[in-house]
């Protein structure tokens, strides 16, 4: 009896298993799709809608290298979505965008540019949508792929301006035929009388690389010491210049010995082309700062192609998109899996070193006191 009842139980169990397996086998396909991760379902829908929209309009930095890298890279990845890339200086882009919106024209989808424009023009204009909800692809949304295990934002709300570039900005370059590295690797060494007339300063009164360098000095030394430092540094200068390329060439040609606040982008381009000068990546005593350059991304609200904008944003933040950006702009991506072998070593942040963050909304704002002293010293 016991054997019989065991057999019955066994048959019953086998029957239940078979029925369950059969039920699974004959389930309609839709039931399988429920097993797809939520992100994938959402991505497929966004992609399908983006294809219907057909176009994405991106406002980005000027230059044919970045324009061609973005348009060709995106076309290869998503051949059914046409990209219209418009490259201009960020400030001008924002003014044009504002005028268009005032006139009832909403033509742009994504803005890729400097954090100053994001925080002081586009955010007050209420032209931005939060970025986080649009991060869909796991390799983009998952913070483990990003430096410091987080998505970085330049705006204090942490919503609108996603920072995808973070690189060490060199405070100065020098001519090794005239100066030894150890003579200038501390901030106050630049004030040595032997350098009087041998220093070029990139003008801090116009937008560009000099603004964050002088902000860094101000924040690092504090108002009182920084005021004194600015005055003494200005007195050392042989020239104050705005042409970001020529001032670097002056160092390479030996016309001046030291350039304070060189432009990262121009410097990288000229180094690649074989011009010779040395880079001081940080001061031994005060370090340096991390900048984002043009490497921050925003979503424009009331966009004509919101789904295509989401597809572009996700693509830009993938390893592939970031590598193309990095190669075209010589920028260090905040993504951890993007190769860095094509970049100059001095731009890559060193582990364990604390840098001043130059791209945050707070860091970009000059105090009235600082504004005044810079004007007094540099405006003529």
């Amino acid at each position, binding site marked *: 009896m016991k054997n019989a009842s065991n057999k019955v139980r066994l048959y019953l169990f086998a029957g239940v298993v078979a029925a369950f397996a059969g039920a699974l086998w004959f389930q309609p396909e839709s039931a399988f799709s429920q097993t797809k991760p939520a992100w994938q379902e959402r991505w497929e829908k966004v992609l399908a809608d983006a294809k219907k929209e057909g176009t994405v309009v991106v406002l980005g930095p*000027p230059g044919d290298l970045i*324009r061609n890298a973005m348009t060709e890279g995106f076309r290869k990845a998503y051949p059914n979505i046409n990209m219209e890339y418009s490259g201009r200086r960020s400030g001008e882009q924002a003014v044009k965008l504002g005028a268009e919106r005032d006139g009832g024209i909403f033509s742009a989808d994504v803005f890729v540019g400097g954090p100053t424009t994001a925080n002081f023009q586009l955010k007050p204009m209420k032209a931005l949508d939060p970025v986080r909800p649009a991060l869909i692809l796991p390799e983009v949304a998952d913070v483990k792929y990003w430096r410091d295990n987080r998505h970085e934002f330049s705006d204090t709300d942490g919503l609108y301006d996603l920072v995808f570039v973070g690189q060490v900005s060199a405070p100065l370059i020098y001519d090794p035929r005239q100066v030894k590295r150890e003579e200038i690797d501390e901030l106050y060494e630049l004030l040595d009388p032997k350098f009087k007339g041998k220093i070029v300063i990139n003008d801090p009164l116009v937008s560009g690389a000099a603004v964050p360098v002088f902000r860094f000095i101000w924040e690092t030394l504090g108002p009182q010491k920084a005021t004194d430092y600015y005055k003494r540094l200005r007195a050392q200068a042989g020239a104050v210049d*705005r042409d970001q390329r020529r001032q670097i060439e002056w160092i390479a040609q*030996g*016309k001046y010995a030291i350039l304070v606040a060189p432009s990262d982008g121009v410097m990288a381009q000229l180094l690649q*082309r*074989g011009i010779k000068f040395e880079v001081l990546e940080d001061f031994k005593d005060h370090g340096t700062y991390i900048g984002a350059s043009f490497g921050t991304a925003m979503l424009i609200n009331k966009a004509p192609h919101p789904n295509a904008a989401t597809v572009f944003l996700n693509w830009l933040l993938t390893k592939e998109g970031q590598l193309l950006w990095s190669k075209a702009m010589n920028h260090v991506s905040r993504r951890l899996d993007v190769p860095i072998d094509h970049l100059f070593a001095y731009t890559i942040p060193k582990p364990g070193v604390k840098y001043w963050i130059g791209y945050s909304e707070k860091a970009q704002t000059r105090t009235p006191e600082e504004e005044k002293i810079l004007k007094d010293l540099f*405006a003529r």
Partner: protein
Amino acid sequence: MPRLSWTSIILLPLFGVVLLVTAYPVALIFLKSFALSRPGQPTVWGLQGWISAFGDRALLPVLANTFSLATVRIAITTVLALFFAWVVARTDTPFKGAIEFALWLGFFLPLLPMTMGWILLLDSHYGLLNKALVKVLNLSAAPFNVFSYWGIIWCHLAFSTSVRFLLLTPAFRAMDAVLEEAAQVSGSTTLGTLLRITIPVLAPAVLASTALGFIKSLESFEIELVLGVPAGIYVLPTRIYDFLHWEPPLYGRATALSSVFLVVIFALVWLQRLMLGARQYTTVTGRGYLVRPLALGAWRWVTFAICVLFIAVMILLPLGTLVMGTFMEVFGFFDLAKVWTARHWNAAFHDPTFLRSLWNTLTLGLGASILGTLFYLSVSYCIARTRLPGRKLIDLLSWLPWALPGVLISLAMLWAVLGSGGVLKPLYGTVSLLILAIIVKEMPLGSQIIKAGVLQLSKELEEASDTSGASWLTTFRRILIPLLTPTLSAVAIITFISAVREIPAVVFLSTNQSRTISLLMLDSIAEANMERAAIIGLFIVFLVLVLLLLARLVGSGLRP
């Protein structure tokens, strides 16, 4: 009178158009300069922008530099341009055609890359010419420094002289030689005839070109920015440039400073009217006129030598340096592992947007030059030949676009078009809007030069046509236009060049679909790739020369 009324019916709407395209955008941007609020915030009005702009203690030396540089430049270029126009149009100097062509070339060449050529030659540390002179003459220091007051003036000479030569030559050509011959028969020397007869008779053209040149000199900033800033020489346009390139741009302050130009323009227009007064400046009458060139004898070789010297030193030398530089890995660096390369040329012409940009550029250039010249002719005719009420106001308004830098014109047009509530909005994103912007921007030059040309023509020519029964339109078409052809051609060419190489005036109005070659050049400048920017600049020169030759061929083919 009924005929005047008929003319008025045709021409009055033109006044409306001039008002709309000049006064409205300029008024709009001046109004917005009083807005203090940041984008997206409720508008607050105030004088803060103006107070900040004019409260700057550094402004006085800046103004002094601006006026000093402009005055010296205009004095030198007036003498040079008058001389060259006289040589080409009124004398028997040999190879006049080649001299004229070379001087035109001076106007076509891109300013910024040409300045790079001068820096490579005249930098006090590494300038090639300086190095050569130090070696040959055994000097202890470089004799020239391009980063200086006189360096700025020197680098301006070729372009400024060429443009004024271009404006003056048609007037010299349209002058009856009988006046000069009468002076010489009366015992005047060649120089005396030039100074006492030729130049005074051409006063409207000389004054118009001087006024235009002076304002353009005041507004010039590219060379001043490159050469002046390192030398500590700041001018008003570089200060405006600072405001425009601040982040976010300070358009209010830039507009406030631009009001200085407005004051200068009003003063110059008033001065011009005062000097010309009610005198007659007709040099072309119904009697038929003599264009026989003045025989200079052996002196013609002296005039020829002066022209060749100017062209060789001021145009060909920096041009040669510039062309050489485009084949260098880095312009001016002879100590690199790989000095020479053709890759900049390859890259410039392999941009995927190049062909579309080229097409847009040609459309813009031809559209602006044809429509613009017709428009300027109509405006000038109204001012010089009719008694329509308000014509003096139109004369004044036609100067307005030069009261603002190109970027602000572009912004003003953007605001005007997008705020037009659907009337002009469809133009946005098309090349048509760029054409409109160029026509507006070049209106002072076009209308003033054609006006000077019209003032040279005696009214008796039109009256004779009228008496013979020709309609107003027939007289306009068969008498006025043929006599003005040299002036109209010069204006058309200048407008074409301005259109194809303009950047600031179109920067806010262009979109992906209406991008021009000059904006590709801007891309290269933004990447600090001056070699490629220079190549695009040279390509624009080539384009203009090809079109000029084609126009000449077509013109000679059509001639009976």
